[in-house]
């Protein structure tokens, strides 16, 4: 019996080696360990084994059964492993991925506008807006612009037949916001389109994009203006960016400044680039707003504020080294693709 067991074991292990798939493996299990299998048949002969040999034969039987069971199990794992390996055979992982619908891109102006908005929101500004078809009052009069100011004529500004005009700057939103305000402080930014009657060329568009800012309260100073805008431009251009304020003139702010940042162009020395206009709100603006509101919420004796405005198209051109502003309105997909995230 012992020798029978030995030879069974040898046969079984040989059969396992020969088995090449799950079915063959199952056949081996049935042939040896199944109800009618050879090992099962032999184990039924245990009852005829003399008592003194029972222990030895029993142990051997167990040993053979375990060896076959383990053999089947490991062969099963080996076969599965071979199948799994085969499943990934020939895959070239260096091929490009499936594109799906592909990705588009946000327009560079949207990206720069969003960067500006996110930065200023962190400084506590909220968004405001106003109509692009404006009245002379909101675009000029209330902004302390004299009736015979050069901008106020049909050569430079688009008018509608009814006397309204297309706003020449987003500063009109300052007036709209102050007219509607219920209380101070006001701390708003207003991104939006503005219009000037300029021939379209490499540096001009007749419709362009600005971002206006206004902070009005009872103790706003030039120091607030300086600190806020320095922080803003360092967020946009980098923490070490040099920012300077040059005295300038705007009808609706006094004192007024133009802001330059020092930037390096490729292969050239860093130079000052004009980027924005700003200033302290002129008291005449508060007076005009009060008159329009019919109250004295913006008391020109005590209310102070700062305002700023910047051209987003120009900012995008500077940041991305875009050489011709018309790229921004032509929407050539080869251009837009360059700004994909």
């Amino acid at each position, binding site marked *: 019996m012992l020798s029978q067991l030995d030879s069974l074991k040898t046969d079984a292990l040989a059969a396992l080696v020969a088995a090449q798939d799950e079915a063959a493996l199952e056949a081996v299990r049935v042939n040896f360990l199944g109800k009618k299998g050879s090992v099962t048949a032999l184990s039924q002969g245990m009852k005829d084994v003399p008592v003194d040999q029972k222990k030895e034969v029993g142990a051997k039987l167990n040993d053979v059964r375990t060896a076959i069971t383990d053999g089947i199990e490991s062969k099963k794992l080996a076969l599965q492993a071979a199948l799994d390996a085969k499943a990934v055979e020939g895959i070239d992982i260096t091929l490009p991925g499936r*594109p*799906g*619908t*592909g990705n*588009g*891109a*946000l*327009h560079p102006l*949207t990206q720069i506008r969003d960067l500006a*908005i996110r930065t200023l929101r962190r*400084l*506590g500004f*909220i*968004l*405001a807006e106003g*109509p*692009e*078809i404006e009245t002379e009052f909101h675009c000029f009069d209330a902004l302390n612009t004299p009736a*015979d100011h050069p901008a106020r004529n*049909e050569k430079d500004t*688009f008018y*509608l*037949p009814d006397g309204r005009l*297309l706003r020449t700057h987003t500063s009109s939103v300052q007036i709209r916001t102050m007219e509607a305000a219920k209380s101070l402080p*006001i*701390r708003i930014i207003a991104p939006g*389109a503005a*219009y000037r*009657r300029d021939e379209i060329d490499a540096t001009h*568009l*007749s*419709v362009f994009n600005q971002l206006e800012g206004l902070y009005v*309260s009872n103790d706003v*100073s*030039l*120091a607030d203006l*300086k*600190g806020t805008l320095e*922080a803003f431009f360092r967020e946009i251009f980098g923490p070490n960016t040099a920012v*300077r*304020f*040059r*005295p*300038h*003139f705007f009808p609706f702010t*006094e*004192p*007024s400044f133009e802001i330059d940042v020092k930037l390096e162009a490729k292969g050239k020395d860093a130079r000052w680039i004009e980027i924005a206009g700003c200033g*302290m709100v002129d*008291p005449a603006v508060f007076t005009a707003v009060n008159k329009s509101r019919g109250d004295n919420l913006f008391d020109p004796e005590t209310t*102070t504020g700062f305002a700023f405005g910047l051209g987003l198209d120009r900012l995008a051109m500077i940041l991305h080294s875009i050489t011709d502003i018309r790229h*921004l*309105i*032509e*929407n*050539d*997909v080869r251009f*837009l*693709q360059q700004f994909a*995230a």
Partner: protein
Amino acid sequence: MQVSLSWLSTHLDLSSYTVPQLSDLLTFAGVEVEGIEERGVTTDKVVVAQIESFVQHPNADKLSVCQVNDGTGIRQIVCGAKNFKAGDKVPLALPGAVLPGGFTIKEGKLRDVASLGMMCSGKELGLGEDHSGLLILDAETTIGTPFNQLVPSDVVFDLEITPNRPDLLSHLGLARELSALTGMPLKGQRDYNKTSTPTKLETLNLKLETPSACPLYTARLIKGVKVGPSPEWLRRRLESIGLRPINSIVDITNFVMMEMGQSLHCFDLDKLSGSIVVRNASEGEQMLALDGQSYTLLADDLVIADQKRAVAIAGVMGGEETGVTEATTNVLLEAAWFTPSNIRRTSRRLGLSSDSSYRFERGIDPQQVAGGSELATKLILSIAGGTAEDVLHVAGEAPALTGEVTLDEDRARKLLGTPDLTGDEIHAILEKLGLGKKAATKHESRWHIPSYRADLQRPVDLIEEIARVIGLDRVPSKMTAVAVPSDATDRAYDFAMTIRQALVNRGCFEAQTLRLIADAQLPDTLGGGTGVAVKNPLSEDHTTLRPSIIPGLIATAALNIRQGADRLRFFELGRVFLKLPNGNSREEERLAILISGPVSPSSWHARTPQAADIHELMGIITHLPGLSRVSIEPKAVKESPANFLLTSELRAGNRNLGWIAQLHPSRARDISARHPVYVAELLLSALRQGSTGPAKFEELPRFPGMTRDVAMEVPADLPHAKVAAFFASQKEPLFIASEVFDVFTDPTGQKIAKDRKSIAWTLTYRSPEKTLETAEVDAAHQRILAALEKALPATVRR
């Protein structure tokens, strides 16, 4: 405005400042420096030299080896120019000379031949643009003379003077400002060799009809002048700032304008008929001006006239017939103060601007009118001779434009954010700007404003002056973030950004097109609005504020097709402008999408993916943020606009979301589209309504559902929406969802009749209380099928 440093230096010693320092000084005074041009050389190391002989360079065809006498001896110079001969005198830059542009001359070798300096062209010395050859000098010049003695060097600044500072529109005005900022004293007025000025030559009738438009008019008669070319110094002054010398009298008036800011005019006295009248033009009056053009004037234009006609458009331009020529012997010199708004109106309306009108419309110093006349008279007598009256004929009087301003110094400190700014500092700043302190207490001071600073009227104007002088370096940087509650504009912006990002993730590119479109683009409008026409468009390409974004996207598609793009996926978010029946207009934010061509980029997986159809676009729309819980019902519009097919309104209940359409194939062919083009325009506010408020959680099903498929044959024109509506209306308690999974038609009519289609749906059954038995599901399913065949012209395949 062009400003000559050498001219400025006649008023102020600026020799201790470098050009960049001066440029900074101006910049931080609020005068923008738009350009700096260095002319000639300051160095003594460029001298007059004579070419004694030259030979061909042994190693270079284009070079010559010259022996040159620099006044101290002979030098060898290798030269590339060809325009000289032996004996010519030329400027020679010696080793160590620094030329304009910072180029330093060194001894060296050119192709192995020593060269001990450089002979120069005009351009290399900052004189003009001529770079075609050496600057050949007059044969009379002395060898060895430093070149800057021959042609004095100069620096010309191109300055942008802001409209509030007309007092800076002259060399003296700028010198006054620089003196205030630097503390350098102004040199006194110079003596122009005033010659004899006998008493009154003759009576002159001066009549001022319009004192509001011309408060002050003066005239001086000068007789016996000899008009000719101006002397060298005067010509050089004018030329240095870009003015063309004409004749001595005209040049003098131009010089005085650029020197003092007082604009003048000289008439040929013998061509005037009788007395001078300052009056309004008569309506339609014609005037031939010095530029040779004839102008038609209106009643509110101001003219200077004699007894017969207008002889000058006041403050803008003189008349051709009475202008000073070489033949003139007697002149009338006009110096006046005209009201800025009048000059501006006339100048704009006529499209005629001059250096004179530029100054008058900004406002000149009313107190310098007589001084301007005086200086011009002295110059005329000294240069053109003649005799002049020592009295000035005057009509009207100089307006008082300035007065006193009281400054609350605490307020100044507060507005500037500089609590440490002392009263003494403030006073010193205002005093050096020429303001006179009339009174001062601890917190307040009262100031007399000089006549040339009419821009200083209010306390805040003085605060601006202080800010300008101390500069922002003195002001600390302060930053206070203030919490302000957000409002609807903020939420609308955030929603718009979510939409943008979703579309980018679906492979769409964001476009930004101009809001002003051409009339010819209006038929591309989707949504039926009428745009708002501009009264004064610049060109026919941009006449109307768009009533729809689609015209812009179609133009974008056309451009990209021309550039060879095959796959078009664009969107734009932006404002449209709708004209309302009552004449008003409404501005509205919209989203437009345009797609055409392959649904995915070509790749090794799929070289040419299938082209998009309208369902592709519908799929993009239904998956937009804001619409995930909204069921969209397209409703064909009664009359599709001519440029579109399939135009449908997209509705959610009774709310209009927007429109979808296929661009008409004929319009698509216009733009050479290679695939059908689909467009949609949606109202952002309507999309946003679907996304308000946080989503509410619904308990997850605890028991599994079961599905049953149904296939049926229906008429080909039965809309999907009808079938969907039928399933949606079923009250069968266990039936919870339905979804179409196949639509089959056969245009050949072989597999199914042409007028029929086969559609297949999968229906889901579930109970919230238990796991369903097959039999209950089957029974429910059969009830639905029976109802289906009753309600719709459908044959269920069993």
